[in-house]
């Protein structure tokens, strides 16, 4: 079959959080150019189960690039070679028959490994819980059109709001910083009039929580933007910094 491929995979295996891990090499002789990358892992796992071995664990859910569950480092790049694409949306037509692919989990102090390629990203939830919201109890809202918002602001807020919380930004950052994730939410809410009343407390709490979770600081490498499956711009980080300075000095 014209589309069939023989792929070699070097996959990080680690039985648990406190166990030493290492690479294992596997052959997938019946890969196919139309498969998604995760379907390649499915085929590998079916093979492993049939041979009596444990399958490779990886997080995945929607497989449409929107839930943010999946995320592995592929040949050294978070989510792999295709720009603005989560690894569930990466397809094997970008590889050639005979290729070897190396797969690793996100590596960051803030994301402890659970098993194989699965990591614990609950730190992201705690960053949001520290202030990544607008306090508006159900039922208290006024009519939706009573608050006009310039289209340009609404569109830019939407650009930042598309973050899927996958953690690729952290995995790609030399400092394992969660700045892009944190800043995307701060930038979205600071662009909207609804977010104004809490803008100072929000930025302070979220930035502090990010540090507390063990994520590093941003030193402008911009690796995060390069791997972000939603193409979120690091201009969000400059917005976050401006907001932070304003909050500290006012």
């Amino acid at each position, binding site marked *: 079959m014209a589309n069939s491929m023989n792929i070699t995979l070097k996959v990080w295996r680690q039985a648990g959080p406190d166990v030493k891990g290492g690479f294992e090499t596997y052959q997938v002789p019946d890969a196919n150019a139309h498969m998604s990358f995760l379907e390649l892992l499915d085929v590998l796992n079916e093979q492993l189960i049939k041979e*009596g071995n444990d399958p490779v664990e990886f997080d995945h859910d929607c*497989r449409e690039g929107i839930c943010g569950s999946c995320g592995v480092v592929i040949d050294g790049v978070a989510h792999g070679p295709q720009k603005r694409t989560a690894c569930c949306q990466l*397809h094997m037509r970008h590889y050639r028959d005979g290729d070897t692919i190396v797969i690793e989990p996100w590596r960051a102090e803030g994301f402890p490994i659970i098993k194989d390629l699965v990591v614990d990203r609950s730190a992201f939830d705690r960053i949001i819980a520290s202030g990544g*919201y607008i306090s508006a109890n159900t039922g208290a*809202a006024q009519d*939706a059109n009573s608050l006009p918002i310039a289209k340009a602001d609404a569109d830019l807020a939407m650009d930042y709001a*598309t973050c899927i919380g996958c953690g690729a930004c952290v995995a790609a950052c030399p400092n394992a910083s969660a700045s892009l994730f944190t800043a995307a939410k701060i930038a979205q809410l600071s662009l909207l009039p609804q977010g104004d009343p809490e803008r100072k407390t929000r930025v302070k709490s979220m930035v502090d929580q990010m540090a507390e979770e063990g994520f590093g600081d941003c030193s402008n490498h911009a690796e995060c933007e390069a791997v972000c499956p939603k193409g979120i711009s690091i201009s969000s980080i400059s917005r976050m910094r401006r907001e932070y300075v304003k909050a500290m000095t006012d």
Partner: protein
Amino acid sequence: MSTVLDSKIPAGPLKDKWDNYKNTIKLVNPANKRKHTVLVVGTGLAGGSAAATLAELGYNVKSFCIQDSPRRAHSIAAQGGINAAKNYPNDGDTVWRLFYDTIKGGDYRSREANVHRLAQVSNNIIDQCVAQGVPFAREYGGLLDNRSFGGAQVSRTFYARGQTGQQLLLGAYQAMSRQIGAGNIEMLSRREMLDLVVVDGKARGIITRNLVTGEYERHFGDAVLLCTGGYGNVYYLSTNAKNSNVTAAWRCHKRGAYFANPCYTQIHPTCIPVSGDYQSKLTLMSESLRNDGRVWVPKKQGDDRHPQDIPEEDRDYYLERRYPSFGNLVPRDVASRNAKMATDEGRGVGETGLAVYLDFADSIKRLGRDVIEARYGNLFEMYERITGENPYEVPMRIFPAVHYTMGGLWVDYELQSNVPGLFVLGEANFSDHGANRLGASALMQGLADGYFVIPYTLGNYIAGNSFSAITGNEEAFNEAESAADARIQKLLSIQGTKTVTEFHRELGQIIWDQVGMSRTASGLRTAIDQVSALREEFWQNVRVPGEPTTYNKNLEFAGRVADFLELGELMARDALEREESCGGHFREEHQSAEGEAMRKDEDFTHVSAWQHTESGHVLHKENLDFENVQLTTRSYK
């Protein structure tokens, strides 16, 4: 013995029912709310909005999700939009019209009072979401923009690019997060609900399994809210996320909750076609594309010319031809069935012949590529990633795929199942969409249930009942936990030769072939036999690798496939019992000469609610009374 179910619809004229209800219910004193613990299972639009709202009100909430974060619930993948009767475009929309379109869209198989309430609160949802900072699309003047969806002749759909579900879910997630930060919600992620615990006839607890450590946990409170989504993954291939499953709902069913209308499933017309047998899931292309895309197939069978080489006179824009007033925006069930008819006639396109074209050439010519890109850019990109083809230049190839399930656990007007204290919200219940759901209505229902319905109905239940003190050590908890453990041990002990995925694929193929877009009595009987045989084989020959005490996805999936193997049979039985065609349930024996669905109102204007008993399933009925809407043959011509 079969009984007739009471839906507890409030008295009074349709438009006053919800107000009458709210005016007469019992309330819980603010200071007393924190004494009541509510367990909310699932964190999608229904569960997320319910948990946040109940915590804001002062209840003590415990929330559970199977993913690593509540933000990943599958509501996040909804693309197109959310309906509301705001009438901002001034095109004639009203609460009544939204109600009527939804009832008609559901082919007159839903409850008038529920649907009317849904239409009434639809406007509050938009207000609430904007207040939370949901960045809906706006016009240059700064006001909200709308677009059209299938089954409606007004523009009432609010949207945030092609990621409306994501933005609404993040709104609910952030509202929840605020309550988590404040200590009012205890969030338990990577937990799977394995059983419902009923004490003294009331739902008082659940058994969960920690998916990282394998530990069982007992959680208890005064009510359980099941917000666990639909069962579309029974078909194996669907647009649902891989973790979406029926297990929590099915275990409630086995503890006494009735399962209503399981045969009502929605096959969405615009999905990317299957490319090979490794396929793990299907991807939806939003219905909003039908605003500007035209659906066609070649007029002649086996015409394998490149689409650009097929001249206008050799193309059949079959939806525009058959349904001139709704055209490409007919409801989903109609569009899907017509795609099937075209491919059955040998006029399908692409390598497999199981696809039709969705063509944007005319719109690009009329509006310019920039406009089309602004409207659908992310969808076009997604299509290109998956297929390797550029839809700006070549028409999209699309085919129907399983997307949503209208059936679910039976609930009354208060969203309470027949098990007291067990409430069911969102897609997990059966209540509002009848036999077919209109586009942009799922988000509306999930958020209506969670933000605006359950805060009232739960309060009425809590205030009207007394709750004995429990500790989680009652016999009912012991029994449920040992049953859950026994199942897991059994699954691991079989060590057969077929993988969980192999069984799931086989099940999916049977259900797709026989309980899919078109159904016959003989096909359904075949399905019942085949599913039952496959289930038997599963319990003798499944191979589940690994340990129960570590992260083990195959073990999770094994439990879910086991439940799908039971549900699949009930779906076929329900479809066999319903000797009519309505909405997504199309029985070939019941169609007009033109191939349109034919209902049998005199025999089937009821909800079929199935009770699980030791000796098999028993059917109960809830009669649907239409006092405000006249039942007519649904026509979109």
